[in-house]
């Protein structure tokens, strides 16, 4: 076997190794673009805790309702997460302290899975999921699912959530 062939194979192996490395890095680019970063420890209440929700991330928004009063987003207006907003999903938005919830509260008076906002029969409802300290719409404590509209205010522990169009 000629020395030249061996050298070509030897260098070709190194080139292939680096091609492999760069193709792996190329697949990694998916992590940099098109991801959503959700910070769970809101140190300062002021800036929106959910970056990228607004512009970059294409979120599936619920279809425009015939009712002009149908809410489309929830906005936290009081408590540790003030300023956070989140689009409502027709499948249901669970609010609570559990990290699996769509809106993860940093509130000592909230339960793991505290309340759920969901869509049914062309209307939006909120229901309490058996929380310890209860969910309030206005001043009324929930006992079953209650219909809500844009402008309704929910209170969970120390957190105040407003539904907006």
């Amino acid at each position: 076997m000629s020395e030249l062939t061996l050298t070509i194979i030897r260098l070709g192996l190194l080139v292939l190794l680096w091609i492999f490395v760069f193709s792996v890095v190329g697949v990694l680019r998916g992590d940099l673009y098109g991801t959503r970063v959700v910070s769970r420890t809101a140190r300062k209440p002021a800036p929106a805790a959910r970056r990228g929700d607004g512009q970059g991330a294409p979120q599936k928004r619920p279809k425009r309702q015939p009712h002009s009063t149908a809410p489309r987003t929830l906005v936290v207006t009081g408590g540790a997460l003030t300023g956070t907003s989140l689009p409502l999903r027709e499948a249901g938005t669970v609010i609570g302290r559990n990290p699996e919830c769509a809106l993860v509260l940093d509130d000592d008076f909230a339960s793991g899975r505290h309340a759920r906002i969901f869509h049914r029969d062309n209307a939006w409802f909120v229901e309490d999921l058996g929380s310890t300290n209860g969910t309030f719409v206005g001043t009324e404590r929930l006992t079953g699912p209650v219909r809500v509209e844009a402008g309704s205010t929910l209170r969970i522990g120390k957190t105040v959530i407003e539904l907006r169009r």
Partner: protein
Amino acid sequence: MTTVSSVAPRTRRNVELVLLLLAVAIVVLAYVNVGLSVSGAFPPGLVTHGTGLLAISLAFHLLLRWKAAYADPLLLPIVTLLNGLGLVMIHRLDIAEGRDITEGLALRQLTWSALAVAIAAVVLWFLRDHRMLRRYTFTAAVVGFGLLILPLLPGIGRTVNGSRIWIGLGPFTFQPGEVAKIVLAVFFAGYLVQTRDALSLAGRKVLGFTFPRGRDLGPIIVAWVLSLLVLVFEKDLGSSLLLFGLFVSMLYVATERTSWIAIGMTLFCAGAYVAYLAFGHVQARVHLWLDPFAPDQSDQVAKGLMGMAAGGLLGTGLGRGRPDLTYFAESDFIFPSFGEELGLVGLFALLVLYVLLVERGLRTALGVRDGFGKLLASGLAFSVALQCFVVVGGVTRVIPLTGLTMPFLSYGGSSLLANWSLVALLLRISDVARRPVEEVRTGPSPSGEAKTEVVAIR
């Protein structure tokens, strides 16, 4: 804690398949290179080893398509390439030592690889959700510590090359410490996810550092004493460092407090210094580290260094160096063997592969939504990183040489078994992390009934 999720989750299994075929192709080319440069002909074992590796990795790939469709697509190709290159180097050392292909170490390594992949497949098959492991937190503690002290028991413990880290059952020998690493990571994750609130909230602030209260120091002291016991009785620096480093890093991930790292480093330095003063074998290692070319001691490190120097930038080419001059060239010193034959360029490609492997583990930890999964994934990823640091640092004289294996590259059944299972766990966690939220949320979540929590800080 922060969670990062992909907007449009894709399984990317086809990308995995392409990368997997590329990885096997690189291994086959390396194999051909060895054969051509040693004997000038295509190696006779090419079909056995090549199809063996291809069959193993394709079988695992199919299992992923079936059982964990959203698992990370990069872990399997990276691990396959590392395992395959390790096989090639071990085969090349077989030729240099004059061992026949049927009784060589490479064939045994291939058999171990197949067994390791089979066990990893079983892990992936039966572990449908990594949160199941949280139920066995304290079982894992007992099993992990049991595995650590197993080599000390009379009868089954074996002393090999001065370290008592082996057990022997009939003709088989095994290093239980490799498996203990994973089991203890499960325990640490389960324990810290329960106690992290108390460990991170209580404390007093001195000079910008928040120091924990005295009673919260208990766990770190226990881990420290245990790692020192491993160091003293099993004479194994590497496992001791790995065990303690794993605990401290997971403590940091759980609490976000730098003071734990400061405390851990101080404790470790103090313990290492006392061990240096008290034990001859530690002193020998330190002298070997500071002056590897001094006479009247092991010339292992010196030979490794000379080998890497002979390789230079582009290496001598596979089959053209003399890596077999170093003792344990196929296990502890496989990295200098690669340095000699692939050169700095090839060595850095290998290091970047390890970096990418660890990065995928940490990315999984970021993406998964439950605290236990985050801690477990980051702990497993960190254990791979720390093990690479200890091995590469040891052979390049950054730290004293310790006896650990390079994950996937080195010859050794226990190491392969443990690391493939580790990757199976990471794949399972990444499957949960990358799966679209709608699919995960079907059915009640295990922690769904959690009521308002009260942080117990006693």
